[in-house]
Each structure stands twice: as structure tokens, then as C-alpha cells.
């Protein structure tokens, strides 16, 4: 695999007469990052440019540009927000809320999930409650959260915590429960104690499920922080959306919407990078032979 890619990417640069970088950007990218990835990167860029073009055409020729401002207008609206740092302040506030709620929710979800997944009595005791409460989305909890915690930071932390908790909890329980019996028994006859089987076999086996749960929870945190900020905050991206809507500033609304997309994407990439770096060895599902 690696060899094939190397020889592919080395070929164009080595050919005499073709100046790398000028002859063709496609070639150049290929040479830099390998054929497969170069191609998909280019396609991604094409896709984004194409979407931008369609957007421009639609807003200019089909829809009312006040309702759907064209890309350039959104870009012009973004510049002062970037220059003043306003947008970054909102991003920082929303991201902090997400991270605090997400990390505490994940921590509690993992610890509780590992225990509930392993200890039968606890599972049977708490499962009915979890099965009911999981249907209360963070959005449904906003009104009561405001009464409990006000519109300060705590209510947002709580709402993100709430959303994260159930997703991570349910995935962790599933992961712990799905450790292959053969693996546990193998450890047992190799000489592991019950505690060792739990810590050294069951928990590592559950990591892929836990990580999957955390990734879903991360995405859903970014989704649920927005309504929380729209309804109960005086800062953050959701508040920016709400304020811009009141003032009928559609370009600013679009800036905020795009910011949410980009932010969610970047945070997910960072999360994946971290998982690849630190947890890679736990992430392989060995195919059944």
C-alpha cells in the first residue's frame, strides 16, 4: 500500500520537463499528499465551490437576496465581525460551554456506563430510568434548566451535560456488554482475576463504543448549545443568531450559521486526530475470521 503510493507520487516530480507545481496543480497535489487523498481533497474543494456558485445564482436570480443574501454579502458582513473579534468571542463562549458540558457528561457517562454494564443489579435498577429519561432532549430541558440555574453559564453546562450523558452512557453500557465471552474467558484461564478482567479486558474492549458515543455526543452538543443560547443566554453563537434575527440582519445570521458548521467540523477533526494519536490501538475491530 505505502509503496504503491510512494512510487505513484514520486513519478511526476521525477519526470524531466515537467515543472512540479506549475505543470498541473492536480499533479502537484498528488505528489504532495498521495493520489487518493489528493483527488478527494480536490473533489471536496470542487463540491464547496459548486455549492457556493449555486448559492450565489439562487440568491441573485431566484430568491429575494434579503432572505438569502449572496455569498459575497455574507463575506462582507463577516469582515467587521472578525476584525472586532466579536465572532471569536462568541465562538469561545459557545465552545467553552460545549466543552465543559461535554467533558463532565462524558466522564459521568463512562464511569456510570462501565459500572452499569458490568454489575447486573445496578443495570436492572437504573435501566428503566435511563430508558425513559433519554427521550428528554437538552432542548426539552431548557425551560426547567432556566428555572433551576438561571441564564448564566450553569444552565448551558447542565444542558450539554444532560445531552452528552445519555449518549455516552448508553454506548458505554453497550460496549461493556459486548466484550466477547471468549476474550474474557481467555483472560480468565490465562490467570486474570475478576478485577483484572474488568480493567484490562472489558474496559479496553469497550473503547471503540465509548469513542463512538463521545463523537456523536460532541456533534449533538454543538447542536443543542444553539437553542439553549437562543432561548436562555446573552452571549454565544446562539445569542448572535437570535440578536441578528431580531434586527433582521440576514447576512449576520448566515455568518453565524457558517461559523457553527465550521466549528463543529474543526472540533470533530481535532477529536479524531486525538483518537488516532492516543487511542488508535484500541480502535481496531478485529474481523471474525
Amino acid at each position, binding site marked *: 500500500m505505502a509503496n504503491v503510493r510512494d512510487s505513484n507520487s514520486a513519478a511526476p516530480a521525477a519526470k524531466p520537463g515537467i515543472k512540479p507545481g506549475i505543470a498541473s496543480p492536480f499533479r502537484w497535489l498528488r505528489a504532495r499528499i498521495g493520489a487518493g487523498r489528493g483527488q478527494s481533497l480536490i473533489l471536496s474543494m470542487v463540491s464547496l465551490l459548486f455549492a457556493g456558485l449555486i448559492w450565489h445564482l439562487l440568491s441573485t436570480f431566484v430568491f429575494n437576496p434579503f432572505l438569502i443574501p449572496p455569498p459575497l454579502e455574507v463575506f462582507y458582513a463577516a469582515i467587521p465581525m472578525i476584525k472586532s473579534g466579536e465572532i471569536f468571542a462568541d465562538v469561545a463562549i459557545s465552545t467553552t460551554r460545549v466543552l465543559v458540558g461535554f467533558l463532565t457528561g462524558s466522564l459521568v457517562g463512562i464511569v456510570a456506563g462501565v459500572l452499569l454494564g458490568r454489575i447486573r443489579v445496578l443495570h436492572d435498577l437504573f435501566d428503566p430510568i435511563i430508558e425513559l429519561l433519554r427521550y428528554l432532549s437538552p432542548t426539552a430541558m431548557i425551560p426547567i434548566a432556566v428555572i433551576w440555574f438561571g441564564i448564566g453559564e450553569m444552565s448551558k453546562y447542565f444542558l450539554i451535560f444532560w445531552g452528552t450523558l445519555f449518549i455516552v452512557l448508553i454506548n458505554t453500557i453497550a460496549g461493556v456488554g459486548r466484550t466477547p465471552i471468549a476474550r474474557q*474467558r481467555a483472560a480468565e484461564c*490465562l490467570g486474570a482475576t475478576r478485577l483484572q478482567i474488568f480493567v484490562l479486558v472489558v474496559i479496553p474492549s469497550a473503547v471503540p463504543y465509548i469513542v463512538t458515543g463521545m463523537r456523536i455526543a460532541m456533534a449533538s452538543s454543538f447542536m443543542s448549545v444553539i437553542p439553549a443560547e437562543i432561548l436562555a443566554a446573552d452571549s454565544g453563537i446562539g445569542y448572535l443568531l437570535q440578536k441578528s434575527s431580531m434586527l433582521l440582519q440576514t447576512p449576520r445570521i448566515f455568518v453565524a450559521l457558517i461559523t457553527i458548521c465550521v466549528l463543529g467540523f474543526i472540533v470533530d477533526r481535532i477529536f479524531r486526530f486525538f483518537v488516532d494519536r492516543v487511542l488508535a*490501538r484500541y480502535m481496531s475491530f478485529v474481523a471474525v475470521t
Partner: protein
Amino acid sequence: MLRVTDVRKVFGTAHDTYIALDNVSLDIADGEFLCLLGPSGCGKSTLLNILAGFEPPTSGSVTADGAPVTGAGRDRVMCFQDAGSALFPWLTVEENVRFGLRVRKIPKAGWDSIIDKYLRMVDLDRHRRKFPAQLSGGMRQRLQIARMLAVEPQVLLMDEPFAALDALTRRHMHAVLLEIWQRTGKTIVFVTHDIAEAISLADRIGMMSVGPRSVITKMIDVDMPRPRDLTNPRVAQLFNEIEALLAPDLARAE
């Protein structure tokens, strides 16, 4: 010596029971290579799990060297059919072997040489830093065997370990296993549904009938020199005999 006396195993609830094993008795001598042969679903794994101590028999008893088997024991280690799920996928080849040494609190100073010895024995010493996902099916099964041997048990319990391998790899694995057995003098209880496999490996073959109420119908001594070639008329004759014995059961199993 392993002794199985009148073992019954009943699965299920009070209303819906399945009698998997019915009064199975069996003696396994030290150093013996015993194959349990029977059609799928006849209770071979069930019997092996009871021997390992993973599951208690419903009635009857199992003893290892006179002591009753009540749980997994240090002297009996199981090799599972699906190496992919039995191995620790987050540990490298050598770390998988090290796991047993660590939990048995074998002094650290000896680890390297033990790991070296057994990885060499199964010809995996050049792949020490690979993860199970990077190994072929046969290599994974060899790793499972090395991991098992490294804790130096007296009895190896093997549950159709080579069933998923292609014929060539399986032949190679048979040679590897026989060599290890001859070199180490372990007791091996080897479960299979493959007549040829049982004949090429076993000192004795325990034939099991199809369930429910499976029993050991016959013990067959295979006193022929190894390697045993199916083109050898004596071997071929034994194959046919066993096939004829299994035929009515196979028809029922279908």
C-alpha cells in the same frame, strides 16, 4: 489426569430445557492427545467449557488430578475457535503473550526469554510488533497458541481452532501443533467436526452423538505412526469406518 464422571448439562429455563449432554464419562490421561469428534451442535464446546471450568455441569463431576474442577484453573488453558475475538486486539503480538505472564505474576526478568521462546516456536518472532488485525487467520491462531503455551499449562483445551483456516494452512498448523505436543508432552483435548483432522492428530478419538442428550458413543484408538497420510490404506479405512459411524447422526443433524 482429567476425569469426567456422569456429566449432564441442561440449558434453559424450567419450562424450556435443552439437554445438551447426558451422562458423559471420560478419562483423559496425562500427555494424551484426545480428539472429540462430532457433528455441529452436538455439545463438544459445552463439554470443553465444562472441562475448562467456565461452566458447571448440571450434575456429575469433573476432576483434574483428583481435585474437583470448580472454575478456570491455572493448569488448563483454552484455545478458542475465533482467535479474532479471543485475542486482545489492542495489544501487539508480544504484548498478547506478555498478558498471561503479567497476570500470573511471573518474575519480569524472565518475560523476554519466555516470549521469545514461544513466539519462535510458532514462527511469529518476526511479527512481534504487529497487532492481531494485521495478522492472517493462521497467524492469529498461532499467536493464541503461543499465548497459551507461555503460561506453561499442563492441559491444552482446543475448540475447533483450525476450523476457519484454509486446507493448506490447516495442514501446516497440524504439523506445528504435533511438534509442540511431542516436544512438550502436554495433554491436549482437541475438539473438531472434521474426521480427517481427528485422524491426523489424535491418540484417541471420542465420538459424540448428535444432541439432544449427546453422549460419547465410542472411543477409537488410533495407534498409527504420524504423520498420517489419507492415501495410506489403513488410514483411509479408519476414515471410512468413522464416516459410516457418523452417517446416521449426520442425517439426523441436518
